[in-house]
């Protein structure tokens, strides 16, 4: 975590003021908003709301341009209103300003008055709302929007027995729950702003562009005559409060209380309704009982929670109160708003808690961003976050669970159905919170306790015997390999120095990013024949299959080494991974190693082998400086091996089938044991062949671990074209990962394998092989394929294609700025260049020509001549149209014109074929040139 940026908001915990205004307007019937300003404000807010509510959100914009910004946007605004009314037929339009409109000083109320007076039969109520993005957060914007509507529409002062209920930003589902409580009370009420339907609409076979829910206008009008207003917000600034406005203007008494979150605030809410003559239903009382019951059931888990709570002032306050009554510690409360008096109120909430009395600190901070929340969460040892999905990056980074309970939720379903209000909503929230705590406890307590208290037996005793067992546990079916007495007597414990795995990129994930390696392709021959391999390419055990690297001589390999080391000072490991089998090319291998060792004695070598000759060569390899070894073991059952290996060539004899496979695996295991005893670090690769050896992988790695291998790697079989197993289905990534975890139980697994090329260079995470490729020292191992075009121009056709899109022929000849130049023999195509046409000084050259249509401009002198000249070396030009004058000029140069609308490939080939058939006719004398 870095230091705090004091002057920069780093990861905002707030949205802009107009977002709140717009949302409030979704709470009246047949209402819409138009934001007066730049296009983007509306679009961004729409995206932000639509992703949370999963509803279409239509917000209009006056789409101010540069001109509007300078001379005023009245015309744009009026036109915007016309269009919006035409498209949606709303009854109310909120006209919100934006940063731009406020700053350039647009007098929106005056413009709206003009607009209305110019249209005497206008049936739409226009409500201006001054809402610069910088006037506050979305939270204040919500109240400002609500108040603006009330100020404009609450005009019926006739007293009535109904009550007003003003709500803070709330989820549609919570507002539905609130309305249910109010319905049950039997009181006559108006809830405002009511987004419960418009931002969570049921599927309707008839889509209505203008949603039909929201507080009816007549109801809004009657707010002025209510007997009392309830405002479920403790922190709405007075100047923005609709309740304060009605009290001050029409004398409607105001009661402010918190939204019904948690036991106490629900009780307060219901008691308030009762005091106004409302009823509380038995069902609600039962719900209260259930919530209380759940509090008791959960309290010991609740007490383990240390919550970081962030969001709107009212919401955070409600959540803090719920946390406190459940014994959960709200150790950090933050809001992005300025919220005067809020922090003090939050601190007062928990003042009586025993844990506060014991000296635990609570932080309540306003105007926070997520860098603050992170810093203070760490400081307060938070283990749980409550708030919007904006906390998800922090939750992910710190591995804290995040209970999503506030707008916006962008990474989960059901933002419209967040539940907090009422006893049932609080219960749903409590369940979520407690489950987040329990889930962590349940999934971690075993490992945590084991880590804390379990002590393994001493290492020596544990490791000794399985190793010995491994040697005797070889499958009984194995014929003993005839290796000679000397080979079977390895020099046990000959060398004690072990290569540090930390510096080998394959053996350590950290090293993969820091230590470079160089693979030298010096070993072309191979002594076994795998059914998933094709000899034309590199060995698929180690290299990305189908990749071919040029073979280097030992001297060339030394040169490559020098070249690379000059550039990569972190080069520690030099590897030989093919393209064939290292040990089948032993003299080249040994020479390469010696040359490099002479150059730099610090270098270690890493070899890849199938293990067949390992028992013969292990000691020599160690002496030559090998410290790492990879053995590819694909089977421990010769019957399976027989299906993987076609042929084994060992000491001049060829073995097939079960016999060959048994020979190979016996040598692999003996070789592995010898290498380990010589102090080499050994990696075991297993290529997973679906349907053949998945069942073997775990056994292989278990055995390898017992013998002393350091790391294992199970790899996806990548089909090699032309090999006998080319059509074998690949194991899925998920299947591979599962298998890898199973093997991990026995042998640590390399999970960062990149299946390198035989000539890989650099960090595992960054293959540089092509940059270190002295072309003249390389001998291409494959024959060029048949596609290669003859360089003989006589048999080639050069075609110029006009395409702006780069996909299909789509330009007139006269539109050309560029020509795509292809060569073709009539069968295949070769792109030669994307040729820029020199259009001369008057044309579009020398800079970006914007969106201008060249045809609409004055053409510079000689424009066509220049185009024709650009195509003069071609045999044909393909365009959607060619005018008569260029057509004649091209013909004079012997360039054929082909008109086409086809894809570039097809059109260019067709043109080439036309030219070639004409050439034939000429050659046959049937046509004059």
């Amino acid at each position, binding site marked *: 975590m870095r230091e705090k940026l004091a002057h920069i908001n780093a990861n905002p915990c707030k949205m802009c003021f107009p977002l709140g205004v717009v949302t409030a307007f979704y709470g009246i019937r047949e209402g819409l908003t138009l934001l007066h300003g730049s296009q*983007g404000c509306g679009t961004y807010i729409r995206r*932000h709301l639509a992703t949370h509510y999963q509803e279409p959100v239509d917000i209009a914009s006056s789409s101010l341009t540069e001109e509007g910004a300078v001379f005023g946007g009245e015309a744009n605004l009026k036109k915007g*209103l016309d269009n919006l009314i035409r498209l949606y037929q709303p009854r109310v339009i909120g006209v919100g300003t934006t940063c731009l409109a406020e700053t350039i000083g647009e007098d929106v109320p005056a413009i709206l008055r003009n607009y209305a007076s110019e249209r005497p039969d206008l049936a739409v109520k226009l409500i201006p709302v001054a809402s610069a993005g910088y006037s506050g957060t979305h939270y204040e914007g919500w109240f400002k929007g609500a108040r603006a509507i009330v100020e404009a529409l609450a005009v019926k002062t006739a007293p009535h027995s109904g009550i007003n209920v003003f709500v803070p930003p709330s989820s549609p589902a919570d507002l539905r729950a609130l309305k249910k409580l109010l319905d049950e009370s039997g009181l006559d009420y108006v809830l405002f702003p009511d987004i419960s339907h418009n931002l969570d609409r049921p599927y309707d076979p008839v889509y209505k562009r203008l949603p039909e829910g929201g507080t009816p206008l007549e109801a809004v009008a009657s707010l002025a005559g209510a007997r009392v207003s309830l405002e479920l917000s403790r922190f709405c600034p007075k100047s923005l409060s609709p309740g304060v406005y009605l009290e001050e203007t029409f004398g409607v008494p105001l009661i402010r209380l918190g939204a019904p979150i948690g036991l106490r605030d629900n009780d307060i809410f219901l008691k308030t309704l009762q005091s106004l003559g409302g009823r509380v239903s038995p069902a609600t009382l039962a719900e209260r009982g259930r919530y209380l019951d759940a509090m008791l059931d959960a309290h010991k888990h609740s007490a383990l929670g240390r919550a970081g709570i962030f969001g709107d002032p009212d919401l955070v306050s409600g959540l803090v109160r719920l946390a406190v009554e459940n014994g959960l510690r709200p150790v950090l409360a933050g809001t992005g708003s300025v919220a005067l008096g809020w922090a003090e109120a939050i601190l007062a909430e928990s003042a009586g808690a025993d844990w506060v009395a014991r000296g635990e600190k609570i932080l309540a901070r306003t105007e926070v961003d997520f860098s603050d929340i992170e810093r203070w969460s760490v400081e307060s040892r938070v283990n749980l976050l409550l708030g919007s999905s904006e906390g998800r990056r922090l939750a992910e980074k710190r591995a804290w669970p995040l209970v999503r309970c506030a707008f916006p939720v962008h990474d989960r379903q059901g933002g419209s159905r967040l539940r907090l209000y009422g006893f049932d909503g609080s219960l749903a929230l409590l369940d979520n919170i407690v489950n987040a705590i329990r889930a962590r406890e349940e999934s971690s307590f075993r490992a945590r306790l084991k880590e804390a208290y379990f002590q393994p037996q001493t290492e020596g005793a544990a490791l000794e015997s399985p190793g010995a067992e491994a040697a005797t546990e070889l499958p009984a079916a194995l014929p003993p390999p005839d290796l000679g007495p000397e080979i079977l007597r390895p020099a046990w414990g000959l060398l004690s120095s072990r290569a540090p795995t930390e510096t080998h990129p394959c053996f350590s994930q950290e090293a993969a990013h820091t230590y470079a390696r160089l693979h030298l392709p010096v070993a072309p021959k191979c002594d076994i024949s795998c059914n998933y391999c094709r000899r034309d390419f590199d060995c698929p055990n180690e290299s990305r299959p189908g990749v071919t690297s040029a073979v280097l001589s030992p001297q060339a390999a030394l040169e490559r080494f020098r070249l690379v080391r000059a550039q990569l000072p972190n080069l520690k490991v030099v590897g030989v991974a093919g393209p064939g089998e290292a040990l089948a090319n032993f003299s080249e291998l040994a020479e390469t190693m010696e040359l490099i060792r002479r150059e730099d004695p610090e270098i270690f070598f890493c070899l890849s082998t199938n293990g067949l000759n390992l028992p013969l060569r292990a000691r020599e390899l160690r002496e030559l400086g090998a410290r790492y070894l990879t053995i590819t073991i694909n089977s421990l059952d010769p019957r399976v091996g027989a299906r993987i290996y076609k042929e084994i060539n060992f000491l001049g004899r060829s073995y097939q089938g079960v016999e060959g496979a048994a020979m190979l695996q016996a040598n692999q295991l003996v070789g592995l044991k010898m290498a380990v005893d010589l102090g080499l670090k050994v990696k075991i690769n297993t290529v997973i062949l679906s349907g053949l050896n998945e069942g073997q992988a775990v056994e292989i790695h278990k055995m390898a671990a017992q013998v002393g291998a350091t790391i294992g790697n199970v790899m996806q079989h990548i089909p090699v074209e032309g090999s006998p197993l080319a059509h074998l289905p690949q194991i899925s990534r998920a299947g591979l990962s599962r298998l890898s975890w199973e093997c991990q139980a026995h042998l640590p697994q390399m999970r960062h394998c990149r299946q390198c090329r035989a000539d890989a260079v650099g960090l595992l995470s960054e293959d540089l092989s092509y940059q270190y490729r002295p072309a003249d020292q390389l001998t291409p191992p494959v024959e060029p394929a048949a596609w290669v075009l003859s360089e003989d121009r006589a048999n080639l056709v050069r075609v110029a294609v006009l395409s702006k899109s780069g996909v299909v022929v789509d330009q007139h000849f006269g539109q050309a700025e560029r020509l795509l130049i292809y060569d073709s023999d009539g069968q295949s195509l070769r792109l030669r260049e994307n040729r820029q046409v020199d259009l001369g000084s008057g044309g579009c050259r020398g800079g970006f020509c914007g969106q201008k249509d060249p045809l609409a401009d004055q053409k510079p002198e000689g424009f066509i001549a220049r185009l024709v000249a650009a195509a003069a070396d071609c045999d044909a030009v393909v365009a959607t149209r060619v005018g008569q004058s260029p057509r004649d000029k091209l013909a004079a140069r012997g360039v054929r014109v082909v008109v086409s609308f086809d894809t570039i490939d097809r059109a260019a080939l067709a043109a080439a074929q036309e030219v070639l058939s004409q050439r034939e006719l000429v050659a046959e004398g049937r046509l004059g040139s």
Partner: protein
Amino acid sequence: MPRDILEERRKSISLAGGSLDCDKASLAGAVSQRACVYCGARVVLNPITDAFHLVHGPIGCASYTWDIRGSLSAGSELYRQSFSTDLRERDIVFGGEAKLRAGLREIAEIYRPPVIFIYATCVVGVIGDDVEAVAREAEKAYGIRVIVIQSPGFAGHKSLGYRLAGEALMKLLSPQADPASQPQARQPQARQPKVRGLNILGDYNLAGEMWIIKNYYREIGLPVIASFTGDSTCAELRKAPTAALNVVQCAGSMTYLAKRLEEEYGIPWIKASFFGLEDTARALRETVDLLGSAEERSRAEALIARESRRAEAAIKPYLPGLKGKKAAIFVGGGFKAISLIRQFRALGLETVLVGTQTGQKEEYEVMANLASPGTVILDDANPSELEAFMREKGADILVGGVKERPLAYKLGVAFCDHNHERQAPLAGFVGVENFTREIDLTINSPVWSYVQAAGVTLS
């Protein structure tokens, strides 16, 4: 034309293959789906993972663009943060320069990023902040490249933002302007030696797509020097001038940069699409044609053959369930729309509606040529138009952005996320498999059988 299409919008809608108006300011009150100049600039530059992206302006622009695009990084996560000077009322009155200056000092001291991009939004110019001067001053003081993007939303639409991003990238590449560069590096760039390698322009590594494309080139043996801008770093981008070829994938956002790189560094460029089997194969072939050897061409052919075969086998089971369905397309740029029409055709779907936010005239002509007669083509459409034409044409699926998704669902129309939120790669050969699967899983979901078709009421 349906009754409720605004008169002034009719010029931007083509029903019979005629030409249409495009690249104009959005019509006020029409509820355009387009975003603004800042958006265009930010989407292009944001994937540079180790850059410090600072919005100079009030908070909204930073809130709404915090980590909303799925560009993946193999390294730094700095680009996933959202930084803003969070201008307030008092800053509007007294100017935001002081705050910006103080912020830059902190960034230099605490983060020391290789570059700071400052996006100056709507009000910055209006309140008279001289952002450029503050940037130069900071550059001098801290030795960090500071690049200003003057991107007030009202200066144009998203396309202008693309161009401004291109200009910012050119500034980033220019060693003359790099305070950290050695004097000897400040030679004319066109004369810098070229290496055999390419830059990829216009892929943003959504769902790892840049990685997929790079893997293809790696297998073929063509080095990728720099990627604009998916999973890129400043150091990598600064190597771009040495490349021998630019391969431009998202033409809408990157053609400008390709032209500038050609003019100033002499790098030729080609357009290429990695959407669809045909296009991907062609893109790889053409790159090898221009840069590669015979050996590499044969590797490319082997790769194309292997991957095409695999993809074709993977999509085959889905084809019967897709045949004859009707597709509607509404995406950001014209090039993607063109690729989508072709991809749908390859899968047996017919495109009945196609539109874009920022398509160019030539691109619309291509769409008209590609699509079957009677296809509705729209520029800068709004929800009312999409609704009217999807109903009229009986679209079965809409491909579009995040804002269009709820509309499609409300109309009972399937939806394909071909947008910045996608989590399955849609580029390359593997992208064809994912695209087909995505189309299948939405269009053939059982849920549609429980709702009435759009426009049909229960009797």
